[in-house]
């Protein structure tokens, strides 16, 4: 019974999660992936910060000032 294989599935690493978080901005993640990400983010401060930063980047681009208002 290879537990580590299941552990990798249930407890994704920061590397997996950060990629999923970035991908979540561009495509719909499956429900399973979303759950894994959410669980991991609850436990991992670094990944939470990462997620916030990436979302901030998105809102920054949305508010990219079109042209300098003279």
């Amino acid at each position, binding site marked *: 019974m290879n537990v580590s294989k299941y552990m990798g599935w249930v407890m994704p690493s920061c590397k997996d999660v950060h990629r999923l978080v970035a991908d979540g901005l*561009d*495509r719909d993640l499956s429900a399973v992936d979303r759950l894994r990400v959410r669980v991991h983010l609850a436990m*991992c*401060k670094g990944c939470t*910060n990462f997620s*916030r*930063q990436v979302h901030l*980047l998105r809102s920054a681009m949305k508010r*990219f000032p079109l*042209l300098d208002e003279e």
Partner: protein
Amino acid sequence: MRSYFLAAQGFFAAHGFFAAQGLPFVAHGFFAAQGLALLAAQGFLVFWSDVLFLGPHGAQAAKLMGPERLRARAPARAAKRGLRHGILKAPMVHKGRCRGRDSWGRSRTPVLIALSQHRNRVIRPLDVEALHFLHGRNEYLAVAPLVTTEPLDSPIGSQHASELVLQLNALRPKLLKFARLQLRNDHAAEDVVQEAMLSAIEQAQHFAGRSSVSTWVTAILKNKIIDHLRKGRREVSLDVEDGSEELATFDALFDENGRFREPPRNWGDDPEAALSQRQFFAVLEVCVEALSAQAGRVFMMREWLELSTDEICQELGISPSNCWVLLYRARMRLRECLEANWFNRSH
């Protein structure tokens, strides 16, 4: 038109009557019937709190819309015809000028939509989305979203067309900068900006000063860029694609267990405060320019033009997974760039 209003008034009264009697379902029925009656009015789109009807000279009003402010010339007649429920108030237009005041006395930004087959009717929607939903067509001369109740005589509204041209010329370098950032190709950027300026000058009379010049022109530019991409003119400068760029991976950020070697730090209590500072966007722009050509283009298409991944893949002829990888790399690099150049400098 008067009969429609009378009918609506009748429904309102009945609604009130039944509601007072404690018969909620009937009251709702009348309310709905009233809504339907008004909606069914030919060519009329009715919104409960912000409607302005212009009368037979609406077409002329539409032509005058640019520099002129619409003013009511027959307020008395308007008051008679309007409903007095605090919900609808419909001043009439006379000789192409009309300004409404709603029942609370707030002045309204005039209407800028003219239905093509009902040229006499110019209606201001509560919001543009609702208008499109209800009407479902694109036969409009110009559209003004309900964003502000400021007066219409903003600088552009009272300018002559030639002044507009001068302003556009002044904005040209910045438009070029944006086009280059997006298209990564100087020739294509020049073409696109040229098209955008021509289109802006053509549409100058429809620009009624609802926003600033630069916002309006940039919107035109964005559409031109999207059109350009759709026409598949892929004279892209991919020949200078740096091979080493593609090999750079972000695996080095993680140790063998998959954890961050250096967990991302908090960007401060209120990173959104950065968004209100202009220098932040200058830094961001530099970071975006620093991306590789393809990654930068894909990122701009996704985040600035706000195309979906499918559309991007279609325009550029790449596979979805390729697209996602490019976006991922762009985001990672931008994140690093911002962290190094802004958030680590205790702004």
